[in-house]
């Protein structure tokens, strides 16, 4: 049994369709196997259509609110750089940001009504402990371009110090069988990055 933790709040953010829901489900399963109370707050409906999405995962002795608020997250897991910048205010002082350096341009940028910010990583690094990965090629190398979410979970897992076997169990429980092999590879590549 891994060590008990007091409270752990993780914000997962990205672009609708990137698989934030699966990532939060795997984290929720982890919390369950650790014997913690847990709440996961999800986004369904309109914002899933390519908009910004955010999911909260909270675990600990007793969790009341399903939401994480400003400076409330121990970790922010960002599936896209601009979303990392947008949701940085969720990160606690001293918290860690795990970010995929991929850029997905929002429509206002595509049509030229806004500019994608430059040097986001530098801005992030000036304000937080940042773990940056180029997760899309890593997922592709693992044989599944959609496994970006699990690459990032692997990188998070490395920093959370829970028993690695529990992560693998959670993956097996949450990922459909035909995608399991590529997701296990994606997890390893994130874990070892």
């Amino acid at each position, binding site marked *: 049994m891994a060590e008990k933790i007091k409270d752990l709040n993780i914000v997962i953010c990205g*672009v*609708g369709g990137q698989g934030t829901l699966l990532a*939060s*489900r795997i984290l*929720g*399963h982890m*919390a*369950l196997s650790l014997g913690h*109370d*847990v*709440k*996961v*707050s*999800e*986004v*369904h*409906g*309109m*914002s*899933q*259509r*390519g*908009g*910004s999405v955010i999911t909260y995962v909270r675990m600990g002795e007793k*969790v*009341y*609110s*399903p*939401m994480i*608020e*400003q400076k409330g997250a121990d970790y922010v897991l960002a599936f896209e750089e*601009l*979303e990392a*910048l*947008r949701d*940085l*205010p969720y990160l606690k002082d001293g918290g860690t940001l795990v970010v995929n350096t991929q850029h997905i*341009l*929002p*429509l*206002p*940028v*595509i*049509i*030229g*009504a*806004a*500019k*994608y*910010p430059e040097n986001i990583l530098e801005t992030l690094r000036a304000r937080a402990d940042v773990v940056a990965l180029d997760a899309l090629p890593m997922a592709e190398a693992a044989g599944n*371009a959609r496994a970006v979410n699990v690459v990032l979970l692997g990188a998070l897992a490395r920093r959370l110090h829970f028993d690695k076997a529990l992560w693998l169990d959670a993956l097996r429980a949450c990922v459909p069988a035909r995608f399991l092999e590529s997701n296990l590879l994606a997890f390893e590549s994130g874990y070892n990055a």
Partner: protein
Amino acid sequence: MKKLMLGNEAVARGAYEAGVRVAVAYPGTPSTEITENMAKFSKEEVYCEWAPNEKVALEVAIGASMGGARALCCMKHVGVNVAADPLFTAAYTGVRGGLVVVAADDPGMHSSQNEQDSRFYARSAHIPMLEPADSAECREFTRRAFEISEKYDTPVFLRLVTRIAHARSLVEEGEREETALPPYEKDARKFVMMPGYAKGRHVAVEAREKRLEAEIDSLGLNRVEMADTKIGVVCSGSAYQYVKEALPNASVLKLGMVYPLPEALIRDFAGKVEQLLVVEELEPYFEDAIKAMGIPCSGKDKTGLQGELFVRKVGRLFGGEEDAGPMETPEVPQRPPVLCPGCPHRAVFYVLKKMNLTVAADIGCYTLGAMPPLNAVDSVVCMGASIGMALGLEKARGRDFAKHTVAVIGDSTFVHSGITGLVDVVYNQGNSTVIIVDNSTTGMTGHQPNPTTGQNVRGEIAPQLDVVKLCQAIGVPSVRVVDPFDMKLFEQVLREECGKDGPSVVIARRPCALLIKKKGEPCTIDAEVCRRCGMCLRIGCPALVKAGDGSVSIDASLCTGCGLCKEMCNFGAIKGGER
């Protein structure tokens, strides 16, 4: 073994355990997953269906209850408006098998057109209402709701909000309770609501409510958590969670039953604390009722009527916490939801904008046609409103105005409540042109089948409503089917139909891009040929990317090869794609 369950999944679990035999709904965020989860139980145990709208759904559930079966009917808050007609009278008839109606409110409007508070329906229809605060209570309260329904011979509401319906927390499952179907008995005085009998039932409604009020504490749904007596807080559902975290020392009266209210318990609790606060989202529903009991309290003056509460807000308003102010969001470009790459609606709205038409639109993914760069929509009010509003615009502004006005409505929304609007157009001799954007699914809520798709809730083959024949039968003289991706033809058809006297229906038919599993060959842009005119960007496709120098490229990972951009290009710079 505890399971991590979505609130909606836990409601379905509770209903299953309560022995529900019939589960009916029309999809609506944040309630949809309840019925999707009901459909995962076996057909032998649970009959499940998507109904054309919430009114029909509730009527099916009322019939099932009258037939002795426990029945569940789920809807979003605005769906209750649609179902309100049978609802208010079902309160009179009462039930045989337990009848539970789930109303899922959406404070903050994550995916809704208003923030109405369903608790007032409970009060005005005299229907008891329970409100769970986490997934475990979603399961438990659903079970209890069926008991209460049968014990007091009344439909019972279960009220959810988005943060309960769409949050996962731990649930301990139980066994299904098998209930025997009683023999059917005719009872006109109970179920035929003509004035003579309804008067008798109104007496029964008042009597059962008095009985419920007298026995309310024995139900054990309301809970007092005494702590420091300086502040006592009355709250329910999601607000309870925020209060417990923000004000850990406060005494709390957690209401699990939000109608009727436990007056004696509230009075007793108020007497034990120095200051009584009410913390609730949306309307001052508890607060007004408690003040009407003559008990001083406050809260709404601080929480306001709009949006969601959260822990810091409650702490700031009532806990004397330092005001951290609103979350400082860095100045970054917004990322609004968009029509997906390959979406057939994109072509429809591009043509409508190009033709500079007045567009009365409706509820669904195609509401996004209102967003830049398409900006093609003039109005969205409620399910089905587009057709009636187009007729109203014509009647107000005359025949010529109708020549450049269209209604835009989806296939599922048309069946939900557009058909009667179309009947009105024909009957009252309007000239409206109605575009039915038929993408063969109920898209925004997550691809539920509907009567036009030929599938039922379990994915089985079902009779398919023929929309063309339906419109013809209504008396629409001109009904045409067009592929909106053939933009030139689509535009030509619209010009013809808008110019004609009499009503027309144009069915813009092409399946939702997300239904097509195999993605097409992506398009590419030949940089040598591209003149950087930006014409292709006018369709607002997320796969087209403009660089700083004005050149455009196509993101192959997003492009579905629909070829719409190819049609936009006047120089033949875009190659590839499926068409």
